[in-house]
């Protein structure tokens, strides 16, 4: 079993690197390096713009270095009414939503590989097809209201438990695993739950980490559910609060147009945050937690699993 601990790197290193390999490595590093920089720049651009003077930033003058540094954008954001509650709601729904989704997805993904299940294909399709259905706003709202879910925390969780896309991923993944382990366990008389919990789940960590990322980011970023189903301010999600904050900025800008000079003075406008600066600030605030958490999940898919060791 010693061989299993060697990863690609060391096994490749055993052989003398050919010239082609070297060239490939250099190009590989270079391309990835450049691409990563291209991906970082816009985010960097947003950060420097949110801390630069708002008028300069709106004019597009801030490109590489911040200027007129101030933090009023962030201060304004952090002093929003109800920010604390909203953050708690968002964290709550992200954690609970992710855990329930991952468990349900893993279980259903596993169950749909059990060929003995009654009408397995039918039920699988029954689930997959809903990805393409969109009933529309009004019936959804009335359904939620009928079920007593509007203005409750559970409206964030329950409707999202079954996610077809993720189920497909998990099912495909499990099917790609060697069947021998499962069969051996079944012969040993292991029940379906034991096979799921003790044998399948441990080897599924990479795909479940992926599903967790998808679910968590989805929950963290969604505001539509609050918009449609929640009017109780105590249940506002962070995203929704920030979203209304952005809207408020743009609708204030529109008000200047509608009421003309009467409502606004030059002084008031000069200190006003532009919708763009607010949008950027919100984006930065929302993305940073994701960036901090993401590497934790990542560990699960660099590890690489060792089928062999499960056997023993």
């Amino acid at each position, binding site marked *: 079993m010693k061989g299993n601990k060697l990863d690609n790197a060391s096994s490749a290193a055993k052989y003398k690197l050919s010239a082609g390999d070297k060239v490939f490595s250099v190009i590989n590093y270079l391309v990835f390096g450049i691409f990563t920089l291209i991906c970082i720049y816009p985010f960097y651009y947003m950060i420097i713009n949110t801390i630069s003077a708002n008028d300069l930033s*709106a004019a597009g003058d801030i490109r590489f270095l911040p200027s007129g540094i101030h933090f009023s954008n962030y201060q304004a954001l952090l002093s929003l009414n109800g920010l604390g509650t909203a953050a708690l709601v968002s964290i709550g729904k992200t954690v609970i939503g992710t855990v329930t989704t991952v468990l349900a997805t893993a279980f259903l993904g596993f169950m749909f590989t059990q060929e003995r299940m009654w009408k397995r294909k039918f039920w699988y399709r029954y689930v997959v097809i809903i990805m393409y259905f969109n009933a529309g706003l009004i019936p959804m709202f009335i359904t939620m209201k009928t079920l007593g879910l509007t203005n409750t925390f559970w409206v964030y969780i329950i409707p999202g438990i079954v996610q077809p896309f993720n189920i497909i991923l998990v099912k495909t993944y499990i099917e790609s695993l060697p069947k021998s382990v499962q069969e051996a366990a079944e012969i040993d008389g292991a029940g379906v739950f034991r096979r799921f919990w003790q044998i399948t789940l441990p080897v599924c960590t990479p795909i479940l980490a992926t599903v967790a990322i998808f679910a968590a980011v989805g929950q963290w970023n969604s505001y539509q559910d609050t918009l449609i189903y929640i009017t109780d301010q105590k249940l506002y999600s962070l995203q929704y609060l920030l979203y209304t904050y952005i809207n408020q900025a743009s609708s204030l800008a529109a008000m200047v147009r509608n009421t003309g000079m009467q409502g606004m003075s030059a002084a008031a406008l000069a200190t006003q945050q532009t919708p763009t600066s607010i949008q950027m600030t919100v984006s930065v605030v929302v993305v940073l937690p994701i960036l901090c958490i993401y590497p934790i999940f990542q560990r699960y898919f660099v590890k690489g699993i060792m089928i062999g060791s499960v056997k023993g």
Partner: protein
Amino acid sequence: MKKRIVSLAMCALMMTSVFAGCGSKSASTASASAKGDYSKEITLDVYDDFANYNGEQSGWFAKVVKDKFNIKLNIIAPNVAGGGDTLFQTRTAAGDLGDLILVGTSNGRLDDLVDAGLVIDMTDYMQGQDVVTQYKDAIDAANEGLDGMYAMPYSCSSDSATTPSEGTEPTFGPYVRWDYYAELGYPEVTDLNSLLDVLEDMQKLAREEEGTDDIYAFSFFKDWDGNMMNNAKQPCCMYGYDELGFVLSKYDGSEDISILDEDSPYMDVVKLYYEANQRGLVDPDSTTQNYDIMSSKYAEGKILFCPWPWASKSYFNTQENTAAGKGYEMLPIDDMKIFSYGAYPQGDTSRAICIGSQAEDPQRIADFIAWLYTPEGIECNEQGNGAQGPQGLTWDVDENGKPYLTEFGKKALPSNDVTVPDEWGGGSWKDGVSALNFQCVNLQDIDPNTGSDKYNYTTWESYLADASTPLEEDWSAHMDGAKTTMEYLESHDMLGVAPGTTYSTPTEDSNISTIRGQVKTTIVDGTWKMIFASNDKEYENLKKEMIDTAKGLGYDDCLKIDMQNAKDQTAARQAAKELDAE
């Protein structure tokens, strides 16, 4: 148990939402509190189409309302909540829009609300309130065709229909960087073409002085394009036209012209802009920038011409700039006749306040609504729109009976981040401004509390005296001593006032709206391409292509309706004018 009943009821509701009507039509059966019994605090869900704030009203305005009525306002603002019509659709489908409802009534929406049983008849609750007698005409107009008093009016005015409803500045007008214009020696501008020449000279001068190339005479943006390119419509308004669908209708009804006509003012402006672009006077960012970016350019004074006072003066005419003699001011064009919206003696029927059918205490809500139409209500509620705020805090009357802003008022108005004294509710002034954003009464009306001055404090003598700057003095000196733009325009007969009427366009068929949607984008896109065409030939080709496509999509069908609407509107204006003359 209660929950169960609710969910059972909802279940029934859901079934009926598909096939039958929802909500009840019951009107004024139970009045929960006799007038004046406000001992129990209630929170109103306020569905407000116009609010720019979502959530509970806070600050000084909240305190006024709480003290007077023991009411808290929880504002539900579709503008801020987002999702377009989402909130309206789902809330109406569920049969409860809100306790207090402030809505736009166009396209038959008020009738629909009444028919669907979502709002109640408030006749009984309004008995004996001043508003009923004082604004009787307006209330009647707002409820025309309805059996009862379902709606309270917007922007009532005691001015005549032919009095401009604007304050010190018109809605549209040719504003330029006055300092550069002065440096050129105040050349005369006879028409739009000569304005182009002047602007060209100004651009040259400005670039030399500032040493940069990014100063332009014109800058456009696409965000507000609707039936036509918004920027190209504005100069039409300076010649007395306003849009009504695809028709430009003159303020006095003397002309209704299709925008795509060979000699329509719209086409003239497009040609003018094309010319301007050929001469390098148009900001090349115009094609891709949005309003935010454009307004930041005005804030830096980098665009020399602006069709609106608020986009130019509001952003650039800071104390610092005006003290240095820099700033935007209106530059009169000899042949212009700026479109002005007349006051609405019968109220502007395009917006209304209603009481929701599920409201708990309709009597108290009615009392609150009635208060909004009293001088005190107007001063407080409409502060965000330009009224002076509560007496004793922001303003007062001096020994000569003239209103003036207090020191606090000077700091706080119009909506600044100034701390309010605790006895007035504390918090920031700005955050305490009424979120309703609904002008019950026009601010150009006389406020009896001030003696004989208007609610609009920017028209007060004391305010104008304080506000004078070197820039304005120079402008005034060249404007025959006029103190405000409106004063100049009125005295030089450059204002075309369209009488305020209760006319609103009728409900449109779904198929026409759809065709209209497609035609709109064709016209907007075509216009942009024409302005940035590289030569005359391309310009003509693009024009032909635009007109052909628009007509192919059914432009003429829309036009027919718009023409009829324009005629009806003119008739209504004529009637309002005659009423005035009586």
